[in-house]
């Protein structure tokens, strides 16, 4: 994802800018939607014309197949993307850090077992595995716990992505724990009488934070892409939720005659994922000028 002509600082700045705009958009979504003037579920296209209608002064990005304002839906969609991306990464971080720290600190058989499990996850293409899991488990609208969420179908997406994402994080954390453990301050802590939990929590993990932040940033971008992809296939967010992936699906039939219906959410996905990747790459280069490759 690295653009070769961009320097580290430039990629960091552009990435940070894009991500900041995206997060701000998600945070202020209700207010922005009220500025647009049309709700994401309102059929606002004039009755006299068959939607989708092209962009005009009233609807800056036009309307979709059901005559809903695309800009309003796009803005509302930021919340779904961010929610899925962040929560999935949070689950992956927690699980992956625990597994990785155990594997790296105890080594031996524990390590071998846990890492073989991680390799099992790596062995399958992530989108296919996610599809298979979603197909295999019960409907999220009636599933325990999930049905209490405001959007059960999205809950399912971030749970699945989170449970698939742990392997990458675990491998990274394991490597960092092995590396830092050999440093003298970790040995010193042990010599002082610190127990394993203290060594891991106070000495090993804080020093693994840099690479973890990079991996998490790249991971959020990946999750947003996966959410859009799953929604595009119809197993993620369910209509009428304005997920960007769902919006692309809805516009699919018109891609040649009325392309704006697809292009608007498609561009949004592209820009946001690019933003997270640039930001992740930028942080990595900032932390390590030698550009060590980590969990790409």
């Amino acid at each position, binding site marked *: 994802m690295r653009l070769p002509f961009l320097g580290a600082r430039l990629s960091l700045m552009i990435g940070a800018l894009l991500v900041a705009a995206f997060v701000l958009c998600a945070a202020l979504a209700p207010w922005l939607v009220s500025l647009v003037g049309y709700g994401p579920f309102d059929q606002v296209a004039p009755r006299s014309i068959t939607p989708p209608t092209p962009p005009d002064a009233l609807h800056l990005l036009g309307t979709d197949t059901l005559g809903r304002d695309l800009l309003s839906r796009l803005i509302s969609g930021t919340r779904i993307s961010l929610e899925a991306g962040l929560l999935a990464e949070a689950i992956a971080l927690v699980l992956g850090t625990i597994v990785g720290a155990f594997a790296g600190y105890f080594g031996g058989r524990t390590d071998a077992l846990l890492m073989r499990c991680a390799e099992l996850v790596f062995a399958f293409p992530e989108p296919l595995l996610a599809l298979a899991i979603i197909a295999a488990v019960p409907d999220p609208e009636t599933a325990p716990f999930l049905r209490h969420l405001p959007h059960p179908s999205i809950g399912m997406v971030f749970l699945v992505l989170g449970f698939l994402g742990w392997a990458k994080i675990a491998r990274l954390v394991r490597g960092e724990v092995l590396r830092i453990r050999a440093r*003298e*301050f970790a*040995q010193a802590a*042990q010599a002082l009488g*610190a127990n394993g939990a203290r060594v891991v929590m*106070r000495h090993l993990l804080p*020093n693994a*934070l840099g690479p973890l932040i990079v991996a998490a940033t790249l991971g959020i971008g990946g999750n947003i892409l996966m959410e859009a992809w799953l929604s595009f296939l119809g197993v993620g967010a369910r209509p009428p939720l304005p997920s960007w992936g769902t919006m692309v699906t809805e516009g699919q039939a018109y891609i040649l005659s009325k392309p704006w219906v697809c292009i608007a959410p498609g561009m949004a996905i592209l820009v946001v994922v690019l933003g997270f990747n640039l930001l992740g790459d930028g942080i990595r280069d900032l932390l390590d000028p030698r550009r060590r490759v980590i969990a790409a």
Partner: protein
Amino acid sequence: MTRAATTPAAERPLLEVRRLAKHFPVRRGVLSRVSGWVRAVDDVSLSIAPGETLALVGESGSGKTTTGRCILRLLEPTAGEVRFDGVDLLALPPREMRRMRRQIQVIFQDPYSSLNPRMRIGTIVREPLDIHRIGSGRRERDEMVARLLQRVGLDPAMMRRYPHEFSGGQRQRIGVARALALRPRLIVADEPVSALDVSVQAQVINLLIDLQEEFHIAYLFIAHDLAVVERIADRVAVMYLGKLVEVAATAEMFKNPLHPYTKALLQAIPVPDPARAREREALRGDLPSPADPPPGCRFHTRCPVVIEVCRKVEPPLVEVTPGHWAACHLVPGPGGPDGRRG
């Protein structure tokens, strides 16, 4: 050897190491089969009296650091016994061992990697107090930290700073303060000044000597260079390829070295007088691999006075004169001219 070599007869030793060995497996191939063993430490016995400094000297790769780590139980020895104040450390369960660590502390060689870069100095020095719940509460511990920093010659106002803001010598002082916090009776100092400038070396050595007098601490002082050792050590043990080759009181060792390896090390000490030419028999070659040590005397491949028997028979460490031990066929021992007990 029944009794640990080098115990000063009068005092009961604080630390007693008997026949310590640490072998690392060498793994090869996809199945990680063990194809051999690196005998990093092989049958080392030594002891340290309360308040005494024993220097452990040798080239890199001689096993001196591994010996120190085994005594601290940062590594589990392959064989042997480590007794501290009569207690067998290797038999202690983890919880008891952590309690025992109050009495045995460590100072590391590299002042840059021995302090956690993400912790403030105050937190680093307070950590041992936190772990062992010494003092009532944070405030009292912070006061103790301030006194410790002062004692090692640092401004207590620096407590809120991070390690990268300090020079190598200052960092080593922080490491000393951390080791001192628990009032240990033994400190394993693993080349504590090797990474420092010569002028700073002297300051840190002086600090260690002062602290020893004030708190009656025993040191196992690991070094690769005899010059540093002369000022601080009561006795010196010289290590070569995982084995002790000579042990003696410091003055005796410098005046009357017996083993050819010790002699070579002593000749390697620079003399601050360019006019004085010295006869110098530089050691040839490198340290042989400890995975495949030479048969017989391990030093015979580099020894300037090697004789036939050295290639076949390993010389035992014998007490040549009271308190002076050496492992060499050419050293006239009490038992016979070839140095072996008759």
